[in-house]
């Protein structure tokens, strides 16, 4: 069957089997592998994407059911070259270790902040309660979301804290680049 949907602002049309799950459509047909595929049983939440702005577990939605809808994946969080404040927050507050749960966590955080720009810690914990971080980094995930709430303009914010954050980020990126060189 033929399906069309909007993914990260771009209209896509594909010929698929009706049984293809949204997570596999996104990863294998569209090649957007930022959306992770984990438990397959709608327990772990790493496959969370936004469907019309709401977090959904894409392993339990058929691609056919998403046709006509607006899908946003982790690749759609940054605009231009600028990270979403949530992504920036995960860098600033070390919201990830292995990174497997991170795409789903960030999309749920984005949806939460769109609805509730100043959530309490318990509201953040409630929002991500259907998602599992097996590094058990929940405390830093909550802090990352709080960072994003406090910096709605992200690293481009005018306040001192945000300015410091940008410098920190640059360092982190340089470190990563050095690591890569060393490994190479």
């Amino acid at each position, binding site marked *: 069957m033929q399906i069309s949907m909007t993914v990260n602002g771009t209209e896509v049309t594909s010929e698929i089997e*009706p049984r293809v799950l949204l997570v596999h459509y996104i990863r294998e047909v569209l090649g957007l592998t930022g959306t992770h595929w984990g438990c397959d049983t709608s327990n772990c939440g790493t496959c969370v994407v936004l469907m019309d702005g709401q977090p959904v577990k894409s392993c*339990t939605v*058929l691609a056919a059911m998403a046709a006509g809808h607006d899908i946003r994946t982790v690749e759609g969080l940054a605009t231009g070259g600028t990270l979403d404040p949530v992504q920036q927050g995960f860098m600033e507050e070390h919201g990830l270790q292995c990174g497997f749960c991170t795409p789903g966590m960030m999309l749920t955080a984005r949806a939460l902040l769109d609805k509730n720009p100043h959530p309490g810690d318990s509201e953040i914990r409630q929002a991500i309660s259907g998602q599992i971080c097996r590094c058990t980094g929940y405390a830093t995930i909550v802090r990352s979301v709080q960072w994003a709430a406090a910096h709605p303009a992200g690293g481009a914010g005018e306040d001192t804290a945000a300015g410091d954050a940008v410098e920190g980020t640059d360092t982190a990126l340089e470190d990563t680049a050095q690591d890569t060189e060393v490994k190479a």
Partner: protein
Amino acid sequence: MQIPAPFDYVRATTVDNALELLARYGPESRVVAGGHSLLPMMKLRLSRPEWLIDINDLYELDFILRDGNKLRVGALTRHTTLLESEEVAALFPIVRDAEQVIADPVVRNRGTIGGSLCQADPAEDLSTVCDVLAAEAVIRGTGGERILPMAEFHRGPYETAVGPDELLCELRFPVRPRSGSAYEKVERRVGDWAVGAAGAAVFLAEDGTVEDAAVGLTALGLDHPVAEAAGVLRGKRPDEGLFAEAGRAAAAACNPVADQRGPVDYKRHLADELTRRVLRRACARAAAQMQEG
């Protein structure tokens, strides 16, 4: 990788269209709404429909509407919508209590009240909620509409009165004065099936005694309200002693099975303790509603 067996997919455009599709494709077709029970079953090949009829475009079934002394809730109303509705919380606080502990927030964005009731999982929370609130199920088929009380809607685990060519369209909840309700669940972790849960609805007389009450249990081996608990409560003045008596009645009436979520005696203890707690909260809410007038 878990992938469902092949099927054909069709998206219904209206309730009438969905009923035509159900009639055309017969018993080998299944309706999908949120899909968070059906799709996992299809992945495990526990369910192998030949046709999947997607009803997510039937916005006519997505509503919460006060109609005289009834609250009408469309079958496609999402859990998140029910959880966030102030009108529902004011009339039936048990719904918000239950919705807070149904699956997890992301699953609640997809799952629907109609899907939950039709899945009829013994650990499903809204069946108990609908039981104690004396809801009616509005079921439509090509031949017309029928309205069933919950006692006739339930047919045991994973079975309901909804025929293969019918669609559950709406739940109707009677609104009564001087009423209160509550729900509480024990689960091992967020999103797991209940170890056990209890729900209660209480209606007070003008003198503050219990005019009528209903207590229901989830995942504890009963698919109907605990008549013995209601019998204990009726005509009495609510107090701790009465709640304890009703709790003992619920524990005696339930029929739990031992599994990895706990042994029978623990689950009986839950029936007792959770019944007391929900009655305590439901009566306090009813009393508060009386004071507000």
